[in-house]
């Protein structure tokens, strides 16, 4: 594979300092501060309306920053229009110019910069090879599939060797299988060229698959920033816990606490959990545990390092690689358990079962 397209230089560090965007009285982006490192694959993840695209548009220069500042490599870019910022950009609908063929689409940023013709030819061909579209140079957008159009958009965004590439839900319009392949491909290109990528998505699997770090946004604010495993395993609040996959959240009150551990009273049950943040005894809180961390057994256990509770299987859904159970453990308390589809035969609906999960896997969250 060709190594010809390289980032212009190290660089591409972005600092968002208290960035705020107002639409009418509404703060669609509310005081966001983030530091994105050079060469990092950084995702902005959130539901629709969380302000992730608006944040990206402010970095790109298509939306004004109402308060705060965006620094790129230490320089405030507020006064630079989008065309002067020199970032690569990939749009959700690809925005492949319909009147230009693939070659001319990819050549566009170079022609706009008045590069000499031989250089254009060389760089465009390299970029097209990189996205495996070398033989499609003379086609038009309408003759390409969605995945191919997206490859053209990516080639166009990297052909001029930007230090920073912005991607706004680039895979949103593709079907699920193709999406995974493209994730791998984008990540591979980024790794090879070493540029910074800021990636907007609402798909948590996509963000976790590709990112070095993820910022989870909700209602214009950053809920948590961290590496994929960190935000998944150690969410800082219930929103993050729920947004990044299935989660059991058992609401109760803190009845006792030790150094890094607390006891939560949930109905007639008491569970132990680690503390995500300091909390006072008597406060309401939720116990968080991922469904795949809960084990289902036929007999009651007693191990001190685990939480234990008995219950009755209400529902068992066969999902292929896993079996998802819903177990009633109290009058108004049910838990979700994902069991690997391996080992012994699954439990039937109505069966009496015993649940256990490690205290180390339990986290106490404040709503």
């Amino acid at each position, binding site marked *: 594979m060709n190594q010809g397209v390289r980032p212009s230089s190290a660089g591409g560090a972005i600092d968002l300092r208290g960035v705020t965007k107002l639409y009418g009285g509404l703060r669609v982006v509310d005081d966001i501060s983030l530091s994105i490192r050079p060469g990092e694959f950084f995702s902005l993840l959130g539901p629709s309306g969380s302000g992730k695209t608006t944040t990206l548009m402010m970095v790109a*220069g*298509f*939306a*004004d920053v109402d308060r705060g500042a965006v620094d790129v490599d230490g320089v405030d870019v507020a006064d630079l*229009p989008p065309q002067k910022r020199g970032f690569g950009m990939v749009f959700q609908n690809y925005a492949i110019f319909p009147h230009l063929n693939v070659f001319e689409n990819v050549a566009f940023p170079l022609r706009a910069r008045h590069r000499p013709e031989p250089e254009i030819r060389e760089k465009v061909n390299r970029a097209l090879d990189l996205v495996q579209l070398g033989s499609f140079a003379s086609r038009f957008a309408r003759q390409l599939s969605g995945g191919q159009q997206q490859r053209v958009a990516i080639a166009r965004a990297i052909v001029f060797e930007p230090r920073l590439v912005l991607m706004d839900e680039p895979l949103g319009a593709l079907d699920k299988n193709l999406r995974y392949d493209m994730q791998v491909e984008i990540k591979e290109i980024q790794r090879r060229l070493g540029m910074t990528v800021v990636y907007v998505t609402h798909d948590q699997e996509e963000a976790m698959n590709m990112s070095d770090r993820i910022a989870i946004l909700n209602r214009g604010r950053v809920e948590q920033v961290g590496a994929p495993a960190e935000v998944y395993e150690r969410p800082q609040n219930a929103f993050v816990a729920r947004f990044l996959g299935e989660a059991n959240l058992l609401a109760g009150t803190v009845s006792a606490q030790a150094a890094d551990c607390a006891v939560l009273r949930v109905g007639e049950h008491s569970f132990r959990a680690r503390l995500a943040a300091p909390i006072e005894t008597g406060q309401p809180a939720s116990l968080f545990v991922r469904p795949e961390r809960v084990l289902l057994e036929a007999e009651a256990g007693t191990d001190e390092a685990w939480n234990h509770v008995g219950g009755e299987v209400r529902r068992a859904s066969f999902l292929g690689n896993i079996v998802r159970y819903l177990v009633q453990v109290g009058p108004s308390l049910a838990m979700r358990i994902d069991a690997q589809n391996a080992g012994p035969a699954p439990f039937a609906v109505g069966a009496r079962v015993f649940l256990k999960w490690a205290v180390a896997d339990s986290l106490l969250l404040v709503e």
Partner: protein
Amino acid sequence: MPERSSRVLPIYVAAACFVLLAPIVIVCVISFGGDGYLKFPPDSFSLKWFAAFFGDSRWRQSLISSALIALIACVISTVIGFLAAYALVRAEMRAKKFILSLMLMPIIVPTVITAIAMYFLTAKFGLVGNMLWIGFCHAIIALPIVLLILLSALQGVDPNLERAALGLGASRLRVFFKVVIPIAWPGVVSAALFAYLASFDELIISLFLAGARAQTLPVRIWNSLHLDIEPTIAAAATFLIALTGAILIADGAVRWLRGRSVGSTQP
């Protein structure tokens, strides 16, 4: 996008809007003038040209002729146009684009040619001055307008609503009256309004077919402009402008009502 473009474009557009509206506004203003001749700006204001306009039996007669002829044209073109638009939107038809182009011909073929051809026939059958016949001929000119408005209105009606109604056991006829018309009515009203306006404003066909008996308002204005440019024309023109304004307002109101009552299926 931040507004970084130059100020030239907004200034140009503002100037262009001024030029587009100014002639119409000026005619309205001078029609309220109180001087002995047309003058802008008028030294004094009065309603005397309107008094002359409504007081003159020939002007009044032309107004009545126009109103009647437009009513006939509006009814014929709206009914026929609605059926055709529905067929063009819903039916599986070969040569749909061709049929539509054929139906748009009356606004493509120069009206002078259409008018002379109609006159040629009209004179043979002694129908010159027959309001019903003039209304029929105006409906030909109004049909393309009705069709264009209703095509875009009916494209906003989800065909699944009709399929659902048919699936629930309603007959085609019932679906037509209970589903299609209630959903499309704002489009129908707006088509009818503009058909009325098109006929009311039509000059060339009327010029040939009206004779002395059924002179319409535009024909009367035309004759005045050719013979003696009496200031009453300004009042007549203002009346036509007011009619246009009223129809635009009515159309806006219908669209607004529709936007409120039905969840809009159309931008």
